């Protein structure tokens, strides 16, 4: 036993310098992400989403093939890189999730409450169709450059409201999004937070959502990211598909313009 302990101690001493030479925690997390990238379980959501997109569903038993995501009815390729945008038929700026709900209501005959009753899934019993559809559509935009337009007055309005929300301080902690995401080098626990006020930070952050969260075993959409940020800053619950959620998405998506879209990604 003593001999074994001595051997272990020696081994530990030999390992210690190597540990110090390995760099910061952020580097290690980056390595961890790179290792997980091959075989990202987000693909399981993508496969399920593609089947849902092509399946005849809802009271009207039609597919979502007629759904216009901004590039024409049924065009999925690259559509996500140009969302949110103004849709004349709905007379509203919509992000992907809101547009999907709209299509499910208009084309498939779901009630709005039914279409958005399960925006964020949880385990095997409560799978979210919206998350799967979002995974499929975003995967079809991988590599497409972010190109969110501010050509319609309502798009400009959404961007301005999003900007206001980003800097709006409130809640029990008197936090704004900018409190955590307005400076380089901020972090929560050991996670470095992106500085969303720089083009590089906004691009890197926005283009990596949706993402498979390893810690949750779920694929999470951008609406979920905002929802959970609101929870973390002790804001009132961000309503799914609300004008506030879309405006904030618009602000961040537009700021990511120019970067190739790179989701669905994988995160801790």
């Amino acid at each position, binding site marked *: 036993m003593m001999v074994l302990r001595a051997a272990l101690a020696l081994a530990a001493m030999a390992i210690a310098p190597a540990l110090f030479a390995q760099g910061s925690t952020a580097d290690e997390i980056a390595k961890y992400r790179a290792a997980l990238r*091959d*075989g990202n*379980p987000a693909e399981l959501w993508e*496969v399920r989403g593609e089947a849902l997109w092509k399946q005849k569903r809802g009271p009207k038993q039609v597919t979502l093939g007629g759904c216009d995501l901004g590039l024409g009815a049924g065009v999925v390729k690259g559509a996500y890189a140009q969302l949110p945008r103004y849709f004349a038929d709905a007379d509203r700026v919509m992000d992907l999730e809101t547009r999907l709900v709209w299509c499910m209501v208009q084309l498939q005959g779901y009630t709005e409450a039914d279409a958005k009753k399960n925006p964020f899934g949880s385990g095997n019993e409560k799978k979210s169709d919206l998350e799967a559809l979002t995974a499929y559509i975003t995967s079809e935009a991988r590599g497409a450059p972010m190109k969110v337009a501010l050509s319609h007055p309502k798009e400009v309005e959404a961007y301005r409201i999003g900007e206001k929300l980003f800097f709006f301080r409130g809640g029990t902690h008197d936090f704004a999004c900018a409190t955590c995401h307005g400076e380089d080098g901020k972090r929560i626990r050991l996670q470095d937070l992106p500085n969303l006020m720089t083009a590089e930070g906004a691009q890197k952050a926005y283009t990596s959502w949706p993402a498979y969260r390893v810690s949750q*075993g779920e694929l999470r959409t951008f609406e979920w990211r905002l929802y959970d940020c609101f929870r973390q800053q002790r804001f009132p619950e961000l309503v799914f598909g609300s004008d506030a959620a879309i405006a904030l998405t618009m602000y961040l998506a537009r700021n990511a313009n120019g970067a190739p879209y790179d989701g669905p990604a994988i995160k801790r």
Partner: protein
Amino acid sequence: MSDPMKIRASVVGDVTEVKVLMSHEMETGQRKDAQGQTVPAWFIQNVVVSHNGKTVLAAQWGTAVSKNPFLSFKFKGGAKGDKVSISWTDNRGDKRTDEAVIA
């Protein structure tokens, strides 16, 4: 009903590399739900991979394997167009088999 696996298989020289994503909860049996009740263990127990009817990999898994497991391995032999078949059985007796063509 379980979701399909996502399988990629490619051959370089005489070595075939197979990468599989499986959709499974992989419950450890250690967690408790909101009511304090233990969530029963539910995990993939056996994995068998065959190529042209011959088993090239057989594995026994336990609860230490993550949710939605990813399996990557190589075997000798295999040619473009061959079929690789992957089956798993979990501790509830659920089964799933999916096939892929080697690229």
